[in-house]
């Protein structure tokens, strides 16, 4: 199957070029996830954080990022209800979404994977908090779950503003 597609791929190369998405793939809560790299502004090693009172339990606290107060959310807490244990591989991935900067505490950053649109699929999703998975990315033998960042932001946004949500809900269907 791959061979026949090869020729097509070559000729459609130019076309497909435009539809590629790059994901930063990381490991957390014993699973591998990906985030659209365009949303990521930087990755840093953990720095001391200050508790944010009366915030959700997955908000570890806030950090001072060059004068900006950026919240740090513990991915593992969101997905598995356990706090991330710090190792030398733990990183804070700072994302920018809806013009807000937020930091995600991930256990380990792995690599950057480039996918074409057709390599992203929805699927029957069990065992995870469905809401946070936007789809599945497949690349060669790599498989990762695409993390639904906008939803995360929605979760804690103030009720004052009702903005149009900007993500497409992947259809969950039987494969």
């Amino acid at each position, binding site marked *: 199957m791959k061979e026949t597609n090869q020729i097509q791929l070559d000729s459609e190369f130019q076309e497909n070029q435009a539809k590629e998405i790059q994901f930063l793939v990381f490991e957390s809560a014993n699973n591998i996830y990906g985030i659209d790299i365009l949303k990521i502004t930087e990755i840093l090693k953990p720095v001391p954080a*200050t508790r944010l009172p009366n915030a959700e339990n997955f908000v570890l606290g806030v950090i001072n990022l060059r004068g900006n107060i950026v919240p740090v959310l513990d991915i593992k807490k969101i997905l598995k209800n356990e706090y991330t244990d710090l190792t030398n591989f733990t990183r804070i991935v700072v994302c920018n979404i809806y013009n807000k900067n937020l930091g995600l505490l991930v256990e380990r950053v792995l690599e950057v994977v480039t996918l074409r649109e057709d390599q992203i699929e929805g699927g029957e999703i069990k065992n995870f908090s469905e809401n946070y998975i936007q789809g599945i990315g497949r690349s060669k033998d790599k498989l990762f779950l695409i993390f639904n960042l906008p939803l995360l932001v929605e979760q804690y946004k103030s009720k004052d503003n009702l903005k149009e949500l900007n993500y497409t809900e992947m259809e969950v269907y039987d494969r």
Partner: protein
Amino acid sequence: MIDEKYLELFLDEVSEHIDDLNRSLLELEQDKENPEIINEIFRVAHTLKSSAGFVGLEYLSRLAHRMEDLFQLIKDKKIQVNTELMNLLFSCLDAIKKAVANVQDNKEEDKESLNELVHQIDQFVEYELKSRPPEIEPKKVEDVIKKEEIPYIEDIPKQKIPQFELELSEEESQQLLKLIAPQDHVYVGHVFIDPDASMKNLRLLLIYNRLARIASVFKLDPTIDQLEKNSNIDRLNFVVYGNISKEQIVRLCQIDLVEEISVKEVELKKSLVVDAASKIPEKALTQQTVTVQKKQEKEFQDLSENIIKSRNIKVDSRKIDYIINNVGELVITNSGLQKIYEDLLEEYGESQIISDLRSKIDQAIRIARELQSGVMKMRMMPIGIVFQRFFRPVRDLSLSLGKKVELKIYGEDTELDKNIIDSLNDPLMHLIRNAIDHGIEPPEERLKKGKPEVGTLILRSYQSGNHIFIEVQDDGRGLDKEKIYKKALSLGFVKEQENLTEQEIYEFIFYPGFSTATQVSNVSGRGVGMNVVKEVINEFKGSIKIQTEPDKGTTFVLMFPLTLAIISTIHVKIENEEYAFPLSDVVETIRILPSQITKLQGKNIINLRKEIVPIYELSVLMGLPSKLNDIHISDEESNDDNIKNEFPVVITSVANKKIGFIVEEMIGKKEIVIKSLDQNYKNIPGLIGACLLGDGSIVMVLDVNGLIEIATKNYEEQISLTKTNEEVRKAIQNYNKKVVELTRIAKHTKKKVTLSKKISDTPLEKTIVETKKEIPTIQQLQIEPVIEIIPSYTTTTTTSIEVNKDVLIEFEKDKERRKEIGLKVYEDEVNNHVIAKENIEIPAFVGKSTDIKSILSEKDYEKLYSIVNSGMVNAGLVLSQLLGVTIDISVPEFKTIEYRDIKDIIKDVTYYNVFLETTGEFESLLTLFFDEEMGINTASELMGIPIEQRSKDKIDMEDIKSVLNELTNIVGSSLLNEIANKSGMAIKPSVPEFYIVNKNELIRLIENKKHPHSDEKIIYISADFLRDETELLGKLLLLPSKPNLIQLIERLK
């Protein structure tokens, strides 16, 4: 065409002119004969004419000119203001606005429409004048030319403002007669200064002074006093007498910017005789003077008052922003300075210099604060600017909607930050629009309801506490709660069963897409505006409340915090967390005993000088557990009413009500920069934001209002959050602890070297180095190579480990945990990825003997190096443990050399040298030597002997010997241990032997022991024993004989 710089100035000025015109026209409409307003408009038109002409906007200038002339006629009562004229004038104003907009957009002047209006004015004037016989023939006069020549399209005859001169009363004449000498002449004159000149009064004073010097001034109008106070007086009338000629007087009066001088000689008789007027105008001008009564004097006064509008300078607001930024930085830097001062004080104690520093820092802080407050005030502008702009729209809107509305404004002087003021325009416009469109009923309906026909719309602003309030109030229908609720339901904003408060229902109108207007008019009903209002309010951290009553009216109350970027705060501590109260909210801080708290209606209160003040625990409000229960509250139980049980309470005041917050500790006052939380997260109730301290740490800034809300309305909810908060608190404490640990380890990592193989799990027992009893500790410690303990931060040249029991235990635990979870990934990475991808870094300083290079591969070198490294690291660890202080051992130099090179390494000095031989499967000689001074220093350092007492005679050689022996033992054993581990050989070190030798002796000793060949390969290590930053350099030589170095390396796995 137009000079950029002037254009900007013009645009600045002209917007003010337009505002003035706007307002004046509206006023004129209400009061058509008011001379003040007429004058005002005249003046504005005049200035506009010049400005426009100056920047080359000929057609605009022409229009302004026409308007000016028109108003001149009005002033002269030749034309009366009627509705037609008003409409014409409004059209002119609109045209002017449009023309300005064109300029801003870099478009050409709209010659047609401007000319059209000019034409219309001409027609109007013609018509009006025809229908009324003119009283006076308007004279043709040449224009008064100002300093800057402005060419006009046409020269239009312009009438000058009529002048007046002093009249001498009978009494005064008689007085004067008595005063004058026979040869004296009496003159009456006046001087008229260009109204646009600066410091007019000073110029006039100058003239007066000059006159006074050569003549006697009998009468002066305005008086000197008036002249000194009022800078806008542009004319001076005088009566002087003296032996002087008229020409002299005229000459005296000829100073810069004087437009007209008129002097008359007067003959004093019973009555005033007007001499042949001999005027010498400053510029070519002939005019008949007309004596006018006091009325014009008053007019003049009013005019001057109107002219004195503001002594403001226009400054680009970006310049101010720039300054504010820098002032902010200054304040933060000051607190950094403060911190350094405190550190210095701690380290060096009190001294004169430090006190001087203190007072200078205080000064700097004080000045910075002044700067800051001054600069902040610069940006504050009276809200009147915005309010004023609404008169016209209200007028237009009410006309177009068929309603009668009167706008009233209060509190124009309330000052707000410019940013907010600029952004308020749209939201206020919207609210006003809504009020007029939906709120206020049509006149008939109002009458039916018994309300006055004309509806009232009020814009009100005032300051209260730390906030600025802006209200938009109408006396119309009020909001229809039912209608809103239904609409919200239909739009899906709410579900049927939900119970909502009134406020919540009203809040729906701010949702996007919401509008209960049944008809969408051009003006409103599209449902877009209201949520824009909300957005602007949110942007400035304000809030909006709705008060409404059916048929009575609606009031929108906007509230904005006065918090400027930098504020003073009072810092407190609870449970090791720091929080800040804005100083403006804090009234006082007190300390109370538990017994002083009593309960009133279930709430905790205290009696503060006869005032009942409710108090709350800040900890609870911030999600921490309550401590109050630990403190005895009831009188009977507490016997410990002593100081120890006192705790601090911060008393705050909001809307004149006092509230107290219990805290654990008072920290003090600080200056901080508020950062918004909403920017990246959301607003947290109880906080107005966070702030950054000088050292970069984050402190939450409290919102007293919000705290009160939580305490009074949402207390139960808050309590329910305690568990979550505790959870997070523990998590973040762990997190922070680990972060500190990891950064500390990372900090001492200088270069990364990767492991060349999988970490051996062989238990230490197998290859433990057998040692003599003198060093029992090694066996007991069961030192594992540090490599295993710290994953990716693999061993390096320097590793410093502060020996700390907890740390060691952590290390152990860590290892176990990892094994459990089975981070195979980590091991894989270490094995495959990292090595495959990265280049193995060989520390730059690793010297290679050229011969060896061909024999040993890179990989072998690595192996060797890592062993040496780990050995040294271990040694450091052990030493540290033994001595109870941190010892670092670093390896600045590591080589494999040939024996013959040894001569270069060993210098011709006295050495303290220790030998260590090994037997067993690995035969070798290890020697550690220091030159004398270094040896003494090292030994002393390790013994903890202070520098002053380190001389050869003061220290016992036995001590030095045993210490250096011990050192060699430890270092040697560690190294050998490592080798043993990696090669699987059993190694037995001997007892160390101490020698004091010179170069030759040392070499001879070595040769005696080992008989090495000259080309035999040996290892040379230059080791640096670091204790508290003191470097102690020693040299190590390892001569492997059986197996030799190469074989040894081969055996290393």
